[in-house]
């Protein structure tokens, strides 16, 4: 974070693939390998030009082509403007059966973009999905995590699936042959002009929320370790709470 401007420092910072998105892409690639039909996986991202590197990784993992939505007009987008942009881009891509998305981003952690995309597209949504069990021409069966356990849901396509990595999940590692092959796959960059609509519908102007301040939490002080017999330890802790004004 830049302490003075309250913005995220992006210069010189490598662009990495969001772990939730990587899981979603892994599910899509697994599914493509399992079904007999011709399937095309399109990796889509909105971000600065350096996001191309993360898309290259998607192509190496198994996406067939990639589109980067990059335009200063898109800058400063909140989840609403982001989902407007993404849903228009998906429409531009053409007939889509399943929109695989990460449950959330590992930086913002809002978990709003996926459901909003589904809403803009007028399609059903499945969230916290850990596994896609089967798919046919009209339906998908997925396993979804809840507070109580898992539920299996059958849902019509097209559908948006927000994916949640299971503990211990190991994403597939693209090999050098796949990385070299990815170089030859189709990669496009689209601006707001490719998506249509008015520039004011995108980015900061198109956002419904305003970020007043962004800051890093102050570092925590050093903790204390009380390692004594219970009676002594309790007394020390009580004294500590009193001194700190907690009790």
């Amino acid at each position, binding site marked *: 974070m830049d302490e003075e401007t309250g913005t995220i420092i992006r210069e010189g910072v*490598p662009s990495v693939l969001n772990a939730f998105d990587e899981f979603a892409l892994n599910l899509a690639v697994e599914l493509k390998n399992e079904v007999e039909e011709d399937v095309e996986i399109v990796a889509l991202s909105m971000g600065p030009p350096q996001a191309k590197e993360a898309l290259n990784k998607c192509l190496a993992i198994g996406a067939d082509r990639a589109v980067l939505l990059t335009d200063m007009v898109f800058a400063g987008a909140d989840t609403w403007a982001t989902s407007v942009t993404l849903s228009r881009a998906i429409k531009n891509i053409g007939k889509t059966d399943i929109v695989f998305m990460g449950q959330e981003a590992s930086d913002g952690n809002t978990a709003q973009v996926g459901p909003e995309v589904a809403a803009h597209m007028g399609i059903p949504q499945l969230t916290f999905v850990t596994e896609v069990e089967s798919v046919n021409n009209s339906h998908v069966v997925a396993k979804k995590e809840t507070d109580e356990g898992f539920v299996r849901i059958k849902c019509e396509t097209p559908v948006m699936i927000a994916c949640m990595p299971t503990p211990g999940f190991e994403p597939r590692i693209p090999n050098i042959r796949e*990385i070299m092959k990815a170089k030859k796959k189709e990669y496009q960059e689209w601006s707001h002009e490719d998506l249509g609509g008015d520039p004011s519908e995108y980015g900061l102007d198109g956002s419904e929320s305003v970020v007043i301040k962004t800051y890093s939490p102050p570092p925590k002080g050093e903790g204390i370790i009380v390692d004594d017999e219970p009676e002594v330890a309790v007394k020390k802790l009580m004294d500590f709470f009193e001194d700190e004004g907690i009790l």
Partner: protein
Amino acid sequence: MARTKLSDDRDLTEEQRLFKESLLEWAERNMPLDRVIKMNREGHPYPRELIKGLADLGVIMGTVPEERGGMGLTWKDQALIAEIIGYIDPSIATAAGFMAVETGWGFTIDRHANDEIRKKYVQPAIRGDKFIGIATTEPGGGSDVANFKCTGEKDGDEWVLNGEKTFISGVEEAKQIGGGYWVNVRTGEKVPGAAHKNMTAFFVPIDSEGLTPTEPYDDAGRNSISTGGFIMEDVRVPEEYMLGEKDKGFYYTMEGFDNARILIGASAVGVTRRILEEAADYIKEREVFGSPLAKYEGIQFEFVERYTEMEASRLMVNKVADMQDTRYDEEGWAERSGKAKTYSPTEIAKWISMIKYKVPHLAKDTADDAMHWLGAAGYSSEYIFETAWRGVMSYCVGAEGGANIQKIVIGRETLGKDYVPYK
């Protein structure tokens, strides 16, 4: 405290950064440092699942053209892969067996072999299903070519090979999974003053009738891959198993050495970087007489001297890989590397000898320093230093050409042929 990182990836291409990410991710899952140490304690053969894993990653023989099962990588790409392999496995067993040896020699075999050898041996080796390597040294001579005693005699449409080869990497692995070796034999009279003439290279399958592997050596280091030898008694190979033209084996062998040595230099850069990173974590934390070890000039200055030498070596390896990318003008190589042919093979060989001589010594000296910085802990196999020190020593003493032979090449190319020793 955050782990010390001494690499800067900004000079890499996007693809190279992805290679690196994939290799490091794979290593974290399959070959963490404690496993490298354990593998070296347990000894050869090299675990088969790791050979397969490395092959699946595309680490072996990437420079072979795509149409023949490789990936059409440049030497710059392959040198980067070698650097990361050295970083992942500072014992250099992986580099010794599957990076430098198989890639350097496999690539050269592919260039001079016919389609049968390519299909039966080179391509399966790229997939990790066979092992191929080099068998040139003999009990009486390695660098001293005049003492080579192995012979090849033509009999109909076959060649009959006899003699003994020794100090060969990967014999046990080849026995286990199949494969074969580049073998040099004398196919004509020894020419006085030009002992390198009338040598011919053959590809010899490890399971050839009449070929008997000898007992593997108990080496000081790089123990997770075997070093052995074999005796050939009337081993028959078809005429088509000759590599290139008759009596020109020495020249092809020098080409193979060049290809392997680049990758050894690059691997040794990776070994040095890993040693420095691991040591840095320790000397920044460990307090002695009230201060971290890293605050004492005696240690800090040695550390930065080695670090500086490591970065200088990396630049040198990059330059050499760039030079090598201009070497081959067939098979669309210039198109692949985007560079015109600029240097003669002997000029390139000089630079290759410089990194082959210098960088393994740097890695060995850095491991030596690190053991001094850490004291008893550094000398124990709890840390990687002693494993690295023992392993990389093999490239200082002789593997892929001894240090003094490299100096003779450098001397010949700088001072002139009139000053070549022993002539």
